[in-house]
C-alpha cells in the first residue's frame, strides 16, 4: 500500500512537471535578427512579451530580419511560426509580428487563423496602431505599442467586451502636420472614442486636393474610404486641406449622431483658432477632446451648451485675459477715471478757447456751401463660409450628411 501511494504521488508529480513543459514555448518571444533594438530595449520587450505568454497563454512574438527568403511577408511569417515551434497550448495559438527591413514589409498574423479571438480584423488593427512608429523607424516604441494593444485586446476578451475596429485609421495625416508622438497621442484619443462610443471620430489632412469644395471632399472621403462604425457607419470626419486652407466637418448619418450642425459649427470655430496659428496638435487634440465631451454628454442624455462652454474652453489663455480685464483693468480704470474727473473740479480756472457766447445772434450768413464729390473706393473681404443649422446635404454617393466648413 505504501508502495502504491508513493508511486501515485510520483506519477502526479511527474505529470505536473510535464504539463508546464509542454505548454512552454521553445522560442524566445523576440528574435531581432535585423538588429533593430539595443540590447537593453530588446531585453525589455522580451520581458513584456513573456508576461503575455504567462498571463494569457498566447505566444505573442516578434521576428525581424534583413532579407526575406519567402515570397511574401505573410508566407514568411507562416513559415517561421509553424516550423519554428511558436505557439502555445493545444492549438499552438499565437501572434507573430514579422518585419523585413530589406523589403520594408511587415505583417501581423495570428494562428491558427480564424480560431482565436485575434481575427484578421484584430491583426490589421494591431498593425495600424504600430504603423506610426514603424514609419518613423522607432521600432522600440512600435513593439511597445504591439505589447500594449495586444494586452488590451486580451483584457477585453477576459472581460467579455466587444471588439470595435474601424475600417480605417481614425487619423490620416497626409499633410504631415504632426510629429510621430503627437500623431500617436491623438490617434490613441480617437481610437479610445471609437472603442468606448462605437462611433467614428476621424481626422484627414492633405496638402493638395482635387476638389476645392471642402465639404464635398470631406463627404467623399468619409463615404468612399469606409469610415463609420456600427451598422449605420456612424461618425464624423474633420478634413483639412493646406493648399486651399479650407476645412470641413462631415457627419453621417445626418440627424443620427450627437454631432449636430451646431456642434460642427462649434467644433470648427473652436479648432480654427489653433489651425490659423499653425498649432496643429492643439487643433486636433481639442477636436478629439470636445467630440468626446459631446459624446459623453449625449450618453448621459444631455446636450453640451455651446454658448457657456465656449467661455471655458476657447483657450485657457483667453479665459485668464478676460478675468484680468474684468477684475483688474476695469476697476483700476474706473477708479483712476472717476478720481481724475473729481480732481478736475479742484481747478476751475480754465482758459477759454472759443468765443461762442460773443457771437452776435442771427449774424451768421453762409454765402457759399458746396459739397463736391471727389471719388469712391470699394473694399471687399471674403465672408466666412458656414453651414450652421442649415440642415443636411447630399454627397456624391447619395448619402445624407450634416456638417460645417470654413477657411483658416
Amino acid at each position, binding site marked *: 500500500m505504501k508502495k502504491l501511494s508513493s508511486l501515485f504521488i510520483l506519477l502526479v508529480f511527474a505529470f505536473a512537471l510535464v504539463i508546464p513543459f509542454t505548454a512552454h514555448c521553445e522560442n524566445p518571444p523576440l528574435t531581432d535578427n535585423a538588429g533593430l533594438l539595443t540590447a537593453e530595449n530588446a531585453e525589455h520587450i522580451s520581458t513584456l512579451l513573456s508576461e503575455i505568454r504567462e498571463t494569457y497563454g498566447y505566444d505573442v512574438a516578434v521576428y525581424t530580419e534583413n532579407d526575406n527568403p519567402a515570397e511574401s511577408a505573410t508566407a514568411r511569417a507562416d513559415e517561421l511560426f509553424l516550423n519554428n515551434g511558436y505557439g502555445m497550448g493545444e492549438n499552438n495559438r499565437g501572434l507573430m509580428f514579422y518585419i523585413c527591413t530589406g523589403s520594408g514589409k511587415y505583417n501581423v498574423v495570428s494562428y491558427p487563423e480564424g480560431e482565436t479571438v485575434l481575427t484578421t480584423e484584430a491583426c490589421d488593427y494591431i498593425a495600424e496602431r504600430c504603423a506610426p512608429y514603424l514609419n518613423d523607424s522607432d521600432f522600440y516604441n512600435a513593439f511597445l505599442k504591439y505589447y500594449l494593444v495586444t494586452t488590451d485586446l486580451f483584457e477585453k476578451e477576459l472581460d467579455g467586451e466587444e471588439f470595435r475596429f474601424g475600417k480605417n485609421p481614425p487619423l490620416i495625416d497626409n499633410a504631415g502636420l504632426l510629429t510621430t508622438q503627437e500623431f500617436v497621442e491623438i490617434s490613441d484619443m480617437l481610437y479610445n472614442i471609437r472603442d468606448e462610443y462605437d462611433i467614428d471620430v476621424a481626422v484627414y489632412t492633405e496638402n493638395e486636393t482635387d476638389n476645392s469644395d471642402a465639404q464635398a471632399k470631406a463627404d467623399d472621403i468619409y463615404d468612399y474610404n469606409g469610415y463609420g462604425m456600427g451598422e449605420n457607419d456612424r461618425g464624423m470626419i474633420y478634413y483639412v486641406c493646406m493648399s486651399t486652407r479650407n476645412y470641413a466637418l462631415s457627419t453621417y448619418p445626418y440627424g443620427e449622431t450627437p454631432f449636430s450642425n451646431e456642434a460642427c459649427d462649434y467644433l470648427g470655430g473652436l479648432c480654427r483658432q489653433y489651425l490659423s496659428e499653425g498649432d496643429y496638435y492643439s487643433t486636433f487634440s481639442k477636436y478629439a477632446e470636445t467630440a468626446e465631451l459631446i459624446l459623453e454628454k449625449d450618453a448621459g442624455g444631455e446636450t453640451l451648451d455651446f454658448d*457657456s462652454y465656449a*467661455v*471655458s474652453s476657447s483657450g485657457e489663455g483667453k*479665459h485668464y485675459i*478676460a*478675468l484680468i480685464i*474684468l*477684475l483688474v483693468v*476695469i*476697476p*483700476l480704470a*474706473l*477708479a*483712476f477715471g*472717476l*478720481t481724475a474727473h*473729481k*480732481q478736475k*473740479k*479742484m*481747478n*476751475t*480756472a*480754465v*482758459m*477759454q*478757447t*472759443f*468765443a*461762442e*457766447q*460773443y*457771437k*452776435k445772434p442771427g*449774424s*451768421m*450768413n*453762409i*454765402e*457759399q*456751401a*458746396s*459739397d*463736391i*464729390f*471727389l*471719388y*469712391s*473706393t*470699394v*473694399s*471687399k*473681404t*471674403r*465672408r466666412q463660409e458656414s453651414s450652421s443649422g442649415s440642415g443636411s446635404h447630399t454627397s456624391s454617393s447619395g448619402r445624407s450628411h450634416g456638417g460645417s466648413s470654413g477657411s483658416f
Partner: protein
Amino acid sequence: MENQNVKNYKCPCCGSQLFFDAASGNLHCNSCKNDFSTETMQQLEEAGAAEVENKYDWEAYTPREFGGVEADGFNGYSCPSCGAEVIGDDTMAATICPYCGNSEIIKKQFEGALRPDLILPFRITKEQAFNSFELACKEAPFLPKEFKKNSKIDKMTGVYVPFWLYDCKCRANINFSAERVSSWSDSKYDYVKTDYYRIIRAGTIDFEKIPVDGSKKADDAYMDALEPFDYSAAVPFDPVYLSGFLADKYDVSEKESEPRANSRVKKSTEAAFAETVRGYMAVMPTSSAVSFSDGKVRYGLLPVWMLNIKYKDLIYQYAINGQTGKTVGRYPICKRRRAAFFSGVLAASFAVCFCAAKILGLF
C-alpha cells in the same frame, strides 16, 4: 501764331497733375488712379480762387485820459509784495492787495491810468460773493477740512479788472474733407464703400465784446473762467462806480491782447461753420482763411471779487464774478481724501466686476 495758356489741374487727392482721358471724358490721375469730371475740377477751382489769407484788421484804439476833476478823487496804490498797481478813491479805508492779499499796500499819486469807455458795475455784495465762494468750496471734493478756517470775508477785495473788448465782422472761407461710408454684403463678400468729398463753407459772422484782460497781474485763466459777463448792464464810465472799490490799471496794450482775441474768434468761426457740415462720418478741416473787418476795440472795467487764502505756506487765489457770483480758483488737494475716494471706487467696482465674472462663469 497765337499763344494759348494751358490750364493744368492738380489732383485733389495726391497733388499730381491730371490728364484728360478722351475715352471717359474725365480727368485722370496717373498717380492715384482716380478720375474726376471737368465740372468737379471747375468747382474746386472756383472755391480755391475765393480763398484769402488770414487777415485781422483791428482799428487802432484811441486812449482817453482822466479829466482833471475826475483824477482829483483818485489815489494810486502800489503793493510792495507783488508789484500790483491799482487805483482807488478816497473812500478806501484799509486796503488789501487784490492779487496777493498783502494788507500793507502803499498809497501813491494817481497817474498812468486810462479812462475806460465803459464799466460793468458790481451787482453782488461782498457777503454774497463770500457765500458763493463757500458754496463753491463745498463742490471741491478733495478740499482739506481745515482749509475753510483760513478763509475770512474781510480778506476779500472788490476790484475792477481792465479788459479790452473786441467787436468784429468776421469773413471765413473754410474747406473740409469729409467721408461717407456705406456697406453691404452678398453671399461671398462684405463690401465697404467710402465716398470722399471736399466741403466748402464761406460766409460771415459777427462777434461783439470778446474780452481779453489787460492786466498782467490778473491771471488770464481766472479771467477767462469768470465769463460770461452780462454786458447789458454796461454803462459809460463814471468815477462814482469806483467808490469803495479798487481798479486795476491796464499794463497789457490792446495790440498785445489782439492775438488772444484773434485766436478765439478764428476757432469759434471754424466751429460754427463746421456745424453746418452734416451727414458725413468723418469731417476734417483742411484749410481755413479768416479775415476780420470793422474791428473795434474798447476799454472797459469788469467787476471781480478777489480772495487770497494762505494755507500751508501757499497762497490760493480765488476770483468771483462781481455780477453772477461765479467762483473760480485752484483748491488744495487733501491726499488722504483723494486716496479714500480712489480706494472706495476701486473696491466697489471690483465687487461689481467680481459678481459679473461669477455670473459669466469665468470661474
